[in-house]
């Protein structure tokens, strides 16, 4: 899947993806929590999609950053689901979605602190051991830091290093966070362990206040995010790239065009590198 472009399997566009008309991804990604243990119509759709495309999964409820113990029953169900669907990459968010054992169903920011690094790293290692695979953790968008004692880049780099996991680099999230917190997105990319990136996410977002962007996945990717994507992939080896779109599916042709534009950028950067490498060999 390296250098390939995928899209999230959402129910609103599932048939268009399965029929490859008008959306033609190279692979699909879905959230296990939305498809585990269900039957009927949507189970058949999942089976069709999985038989047609390579699959990655992006989790929602593992809650790697929670203070409480991991839900090992869930991890066990997750392992069976990942195996059954021959999932090639499994990723989760570097955040917490559960507090006092109550699921909150959205991504809360973990304090950037040394004890949190140790705590989360240990949990990632235990999950990796239970799943029998390395996982990729995603840099999440956040709207305020909370009780931070270190930089975001140090926080992410330390966890990746300590837990020996992979990184899902969400380029849109880097852009969103740089805007919201007033830092330089390219410097942030320069400080990421790009040799550990297994996967890239791209998405659209929404500016809700003059100084605040919310990561909505509901709009087309904007040009500055494409620019940051080009800057990023110029500095790393090919990996799969996913277009995240969670709603606003009225204009499927434009979503298809976004996939094609990502392919063009990838061909320009990674395609040339590959051809040159092959020529030298």
């Amino acid at each position, binding site marked *: 899947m390296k250098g390939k472009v995928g899209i999230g399997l959402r129910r609103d566009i599932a048939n268009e993806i399965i029929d490859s008309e008008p959306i033609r991804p190279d692979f699909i990604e879905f959230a296990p929590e939305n498809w585990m243990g269900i039957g009927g*119509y949507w189970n058949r759709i999942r089976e069709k999609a999985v038989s047609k495309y390579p699959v990655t999964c992006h989790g929602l409820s593992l809650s790697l*950053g929670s*203070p409480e113990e991991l839900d090992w029953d869930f991890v066990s169900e997750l392992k069976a689901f990942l195996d059954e669907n021959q999932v090639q990459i499994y990723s989760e968010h570097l955040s917490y979605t559960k507090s006092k054992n109550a699921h*909150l169903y959205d991504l*809360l920011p973990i*304090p950037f602190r040394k004890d949190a690094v140790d705590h989360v790293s240990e949990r990632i290692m235990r999950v990796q051991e239970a799943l029998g695979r390395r996982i990729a953790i995603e840099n999440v968008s956040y709207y305020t*830091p909370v009780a931070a004692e270190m930089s975001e880049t140090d926080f992410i780099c330390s966890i990746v290093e300590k837990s020996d996991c992979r990184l899902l680099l969400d380029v849109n999230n880097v852009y969103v966070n740089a805007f919201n917190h007033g830092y330089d997105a390219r410097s942030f990319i320069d400080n990421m362990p790009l040799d550990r990136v297994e996967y890239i996410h791209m998405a659209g977002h929404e500016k809700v206040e003059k100084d605040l962007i919310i990561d909505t996945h509901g709009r087309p990717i904007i040009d500055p995010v494409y620019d940051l994507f080009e800057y990023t992939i110029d500095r790393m080896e090919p990996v799969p790239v996913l277009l995240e779109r969670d709603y606003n599916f009225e204009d499927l042709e434009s979503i298809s065009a976004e996939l094609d534009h990502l392919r063009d950028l990838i061909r320009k950067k990674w395609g040339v590198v590959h051809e040159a490498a092959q020529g030298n060999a």
Partner: protein
Amino acid sequence: MKLHKETRDIQHRLGDYCKTGREVSLPGVTEGRIKHYRRLVYNVVKNSMDQAYPIASSALGTVLWDELVNDFFSNHAPRSTQIWKLPHEFYEYHYSKNTATKLKRAWLNDLLWFEWAEIEVHTMPDRDVLPYNEEGDSLVDPLILNPEHEVLQLEFPVHKQSLVDIESHRGEYYVLLYREPETGRVRFIDLSVLHAFILMKVNEEGIPLNEFKGEIASIASIESEKYLDDYLRDFMGNLMEKKMVLGFAVS
């Protein structure tokens, strides 16, 4: 535990704020930004309940419905890793809190249960089906039912009547919900007490109708055997057309 108590407390306080909306003071946050977490978290939960309970939410009205969702999310710790199951916890919560009585809407429990059952039947895992023939005799051969179904016993006819004067119709009602095998759509059928008894007996005991025809005749006060046979064949034939009865057990 590698996490310090202070960090854990900060995380819990943010979590509590997202659940309740009650103001919180947290160190090192950007002014005016925390509110977006409460808004985003609460919207996810509210949308989930709105989609699961379109009839109940409309019947109660925006203000009261929002109070119910807020009360649930503030005081209950959601257990499910899958948000589509959260509406069931909402139903259980308000059932246990006796909300229907407190609000003087006695029909609320039935309505929430009925709306949840539609989601559950639509989404439940595929169940195994015993081998069956499409040809057979519905009185003599054991029937194979569509396994993806539920029979609900209700106090109010929320499945077939407007809520306007429903409280004057308190009684004993049965409704069958099942999933069409080809389309995955959920259908529901109003059942009489007798029909509910027959379906539950077939489902639980897997015996031919002939073996408990006497019981059926007694409940329905039917004396003519021919009338009873025709009645049962019609009932089962109708369920077969609707794909609630799949066929006849392979002997």
